[in-house]
């Protein structure tokens, strides 16, 4: 345990030194990556998914301003996302109707403004409290806005929502934003800008004090800061970026509807942030990309994709509370000590039994789903190209053997991984890269 903490500390130190050496290199590389991605992933589906990822990244990073940076657990972040979407749609429709010379490029600002405005309003109340009380208030506000969206039909458009046409605005460089590729670049530009701004924010006096309030809000008071004000500012800025993400979503779908306010939306951003890792700035970016990908791919493959999603979340909470980013960062000192390759070998050995367990678990889950949910379709099912009977004892026996044998082997391999980890840590410690 203390090892893990020490490692984290050493990586933080390393991160800052990297930041000092190449402050601009990272951003130029990120820009080139975003610009180049459509050249590799050309299909329409891929472009749509990349667009969704860009939106999810902004949304998750804005959420992490609360969760990871300031230590505020919100169950209602979709409120600002959804309001951002609605205000953007209305702004676009208004600009079209009034023939205002405003390009689509600027429309996410309407979403950001709405997010900021309502975060000021709701945050004024909710950030007076912290911890559980704050979480409960956020849940209540989400319910309030969610149900209002169905009642106030003139603004929210009832169940159907409000549609728009993104191609009818002032054109710059002859871009009408009809093709998805143009929308992708719009989202990518806003994504890069938002990431840069949110990162810069963590390097300001306010950003540093967010971390201080997260760690110990009592102590923050005795160095002159009012934790309520810190939480309030964090909440407002977070709402603004969530609003920008919502605005981009409404441009992408040419629609804003009440589903944007749903608890599912608020839950997803929490999952993405946590799975990616709330403790590191890049965590939510990784989480947003992974979760968006899984949501779109898994839902094609299996009907119970949300179950797998939940299992993944539980596994993260239990075994990798630092998320993906935490797992990666743990290996920083070991990598610099040159001891990573042996450790990776141990991981590869562990991967085999884990894969067995995973296949066994998937088999059990899918057979149960088939027999339970899809009972009407009979007992014959197909997985990975193999057709079999979900009632046959052979299939169940195979699944059970995979689970048990894989589990047993995983235990053995786990000891080897633990030993390899200790050795690698020892090497890193000898070289003074960790304590």
């Amino acid at each position, binding site marked *: 345990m203390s090892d893990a903490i020490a490692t984290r*500390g050493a990586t933080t130190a390393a991160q*800052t030194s990297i930041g000092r050496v190449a402050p601009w290199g990272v951003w130029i590389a990120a820009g080139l990556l975003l610009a180049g991605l459509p050249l590799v992933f050309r299909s329409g589906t891929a472009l749509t998914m990349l667009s969704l990822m860009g939106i999810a990244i902004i949304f998750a990073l804005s959420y992490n301003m609360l969760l990871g940076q300031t230590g505020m657990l919100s169950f209602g972040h979709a409120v600002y996302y959804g309001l951002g979407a609605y205000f953007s749609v209305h702004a676009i429709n208004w600009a079209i109707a009034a023939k205002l010379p405003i390009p689509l490029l600027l429309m996410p600002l309407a979403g950001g403004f709405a997010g900021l405005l309502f975060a000021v309003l709701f945050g004024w109340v909710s950030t007076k409290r912290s911890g559980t009380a704050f979480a409960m208030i956020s849940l209540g506000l989400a319910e309030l806005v969610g149900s209002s969206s169905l009642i106030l039909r003139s603004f929210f458009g009832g169940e159907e929502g409000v549609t728009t046409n993104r191609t009818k605005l002032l054109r710059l460089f002859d871009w009408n934003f009809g093709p998805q590729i143009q929308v992708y670049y719009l989202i990518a530009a806003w994504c890069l800008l938002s990431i840069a701004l949110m990162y810069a924010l963590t390097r300001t006096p306010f950003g540093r004090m967010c971390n201080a309030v997260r760690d110990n809000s009592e102590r923050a008071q005795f160095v002159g800061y009012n934790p309520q004000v810190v939480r309030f500012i964090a909440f407002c800025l977070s709402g603004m970026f969530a609003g920008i993400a919502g605005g981009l979503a409404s441009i992408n779908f040419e629609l804003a509807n009440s589903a944007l306010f749903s608890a599912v939306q608020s839950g997803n951003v929490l999952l993405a942030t946590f799975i990616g890792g709330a403790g590191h700035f890049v965590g939510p970016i990784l989480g947003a990309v992974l979760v968006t990908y899984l949501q779109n791919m898994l839902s094609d493959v299996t009907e119970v994709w949300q179950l797998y999603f939940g299992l993944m979340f539980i596994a993260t909470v239990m075994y990798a509370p630092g998320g993906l980013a935490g797992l990666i960062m743990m290996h920083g000192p070991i990598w610099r000590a040159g001891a990573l390759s042996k450790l990776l070998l141990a991981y590869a050995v562990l991967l085999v039994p884990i894969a067995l367990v995973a296949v066994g678990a998937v088999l059990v889950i899918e057979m149960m789903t088939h027999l339970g949910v899809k009972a009407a379709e009979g007992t014959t099912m197909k997985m990975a190209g193999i057709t079999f009977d979900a009632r046959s004892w052979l299939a169940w026996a195979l699944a059970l053997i995979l689970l048990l044998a894989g589990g047993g082997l995983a235990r053995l391999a786990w000891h080897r991984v633990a030993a390899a980890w200790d050795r690698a840590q020892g090497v890193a410690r000898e070289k003074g890269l960790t304590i």
Partner: protein
Amino acid sequence: MSALPEERRVRVAALEARGLRKNFGPAEIIRGVDLTVPKGERHAVIGPNGAGKSTLFNLISGLLLPTAGEIRLDGAPVNALPAYKINRRGLSRSFQVTNIFPKLSVWENVRCAMLWSTGEKYAFWRSVEANPEIAQRTQQVLSEINLIARKDLPAGVLTYAEQRALEIGITMAGGANVILLDEPTAGMSHAETERAVALIRRISEGRTLLIVEHDMSVVFGLADRISVLVYGEIIASGTPAEIRGNPKVREAYLGEEAH
């Protein structure tokens, strides 16, 4: 003629408590404390366990609201102010149980402690590194508390003595004129205590210090004046020599210590 210096001393009192009381339900923990600490004085509060020393500190620093009475900082009443406003007026405190920012690096701990006093406040539009004075002063504080070599580690992994030193570093970083230290050497070895006392002596130079301490050698070596708190009341206040010779104190407190 002799009345004038006395009057001036009272007028410039850095810290003053009048008729201070604190009840927790029916339990009266502080029962009418009067305390005056003139500017530049090192003042120790001693007393047996449960006498209310930490509660007194919590009242002065704004962690608790007094039930009755008044607290003045540089002559201005502060007893109704929240802790952060009292801190902004130049009073800083340490805690008996180490109270740091565990996940932040040692460097960040000290830097965060001076952001308000250097005028950074809630600024979210400029880099924390824009003002070179902050880095300079952080470096200075870290070398004072001898933690330069540990500056990039998360504060939570430091040893106990190092965390105690950091606690003092956070307390002094903001440049407060009045410093309250709550048992700064508690749980330290003899050598560590000596180092801590030297540090406290250095940082309290030219400032006002109010310190709660159990180690009598620390108290008598450091304090200009001592107040003895017993069951929520100050039974004696005076120079170390006066306190040593006070029969009431010997009976209530020092007598017990001697066993």
